[in-house]
């Protein structure tokens, strides 16, 4: 990617390197959000419907983990995936897979905590009805997740937003390798360190535009779905 052209030029001319970065960033962040949702929503639902010793402490811990420092997560994942680490045999350090793992660890507490709150609120509303209908535990969870689906979209968006905006973890475990693990945020960090501020700002604007478009699409989907299903 040349340094002396503006980001607008790169976007308008369909620069392949830029689009490779955007594509990779989207794949990594969406994959991380998907993995985190697969773990975080059931986890949040389970905590919402469970009562056990130390539940309050678990909720406080989960909420606190929403603020996990990305560089710390990146460091832990780096150590785990490095050759001498416990998962070194996987050989995925400095690959997009490692970036997905790091981002998923960051995003899972966000989705789990927001899902827990959403589902717990809905459970208070549904408890008598589902108990009277003699609905079993697994079906209760499925019912609550399904009926909270529109609110859970917000949790997913928060998770995706965190993943898309994150730089500390992916730069440690991905290595910011051009054409392989370079994402929007790592490219912005690199261009800024090189003093290429117009390009960094341009890339930042593209990143913000992507996040806005994804949120707008999710919002439109939510409104349309709500109209159809109440």
């Amino acid at each position: 990617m040349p340094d002396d052209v503006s980001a607008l030029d790169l976007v308008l001319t369909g620069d392949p390197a830029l689009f490779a970065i955007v594509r990779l960033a989207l794949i990594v962040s969406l994959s991380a959000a998907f993995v985190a949702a697969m773990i975080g929503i059931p986890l949040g639902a389970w905590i919402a419907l469970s009562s056990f010793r130390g539940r309050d402490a678990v909720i406080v811990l989960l909420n606190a983990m929403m603020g996990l420092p990305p560089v710390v997560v990146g460091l832990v994942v780096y150590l785990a995936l490095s050759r001498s680490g416990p998962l070194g045999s996987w050989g995925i350090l400095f690959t997009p897979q490692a970036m997905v793992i790091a981002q998923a660890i960051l995003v899972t507490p966000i989705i789990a905590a927001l899902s827990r709150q959403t589902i717990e609120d809905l459970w208070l509303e549904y408890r008598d009805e589902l108990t009277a209908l003699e609905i079993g535990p697994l079906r209760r969870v499925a019912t609550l997740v399904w009926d909270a689906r529109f609110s859970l979209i917000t949790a997913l968006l928060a998770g995706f937003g965190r993943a898309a905006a994150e730089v500390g973890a992916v730069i440690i475990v991905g290595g910011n390798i051009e054409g392989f693990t370079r994402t929007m945020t790592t490219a912005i960090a690199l261009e800024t360190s090189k003093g290429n501020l117009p390009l960094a700002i341009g890339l930042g604007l593209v990143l913000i535009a992507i996040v806005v478009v994804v949120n707008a699409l999710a919002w439109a989907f939510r409104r349309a779905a709500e109209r159809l299903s109440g």
Partner: protein
Amino acid sequence: MIGFVEVTVSVGTVTLLDRLTLAIAPGAPTVLIGPNGAGKTTVLRAAMGLLQPTSGRIVWDGEPRRAIVFQRPTMLRRSAAANVRYASVGADRTRELLELVGLAHAADRPARRLSSGEQQRLALARALARDPKVLFLDEPTASLDPASTKAIEDVIRAVSARGIKVVMSTHDLGEARRLAGEVVLLHRGRIVEAAAAPGFFDAPRTVEARRFMAGELLV
């Protein structure tokens, strides 16, 4: 059919039901009446197993096949038909039940977009999808307009005619007169008077019942 034997329900220091003994037999609807806080809803919730007696016991004759419609039923976020289908046991009778409650035309509409009266009828259909032998109704027509009230009462009569035992609470003496086979007057968690409807309305035995019938406030 259902027996309450010396049932007491307490929450903290508050006694909601006080050594209540009541036998509910098959037949025409049993209607629980009484002022707020008398224990009507507690009787229904205890019979549904939604709260456990502090002492005493509730005995069922055979398997307790039961369902309840709450005063403010919660509609699941799906269509009216899907709400009924969700609760179904055995063969799917969604269409038949929606027709019974007069909501066949609204089968595909989101349940939460229905009017209060329609939601109450949908909740009735959903409860009936459990194929209950006993149907508990907690103030099923509270805050409904006369047309909606009549629609609900018509469904209650139809349900009762099918052999399903209806046990309901109401504030509305007129409704109790229209529907009840048996009336149970509750006050402060105790049964003041329980009698067949004609006898209760024509010749109440207790002072409290006479006062309640006369529209006086039982406090």
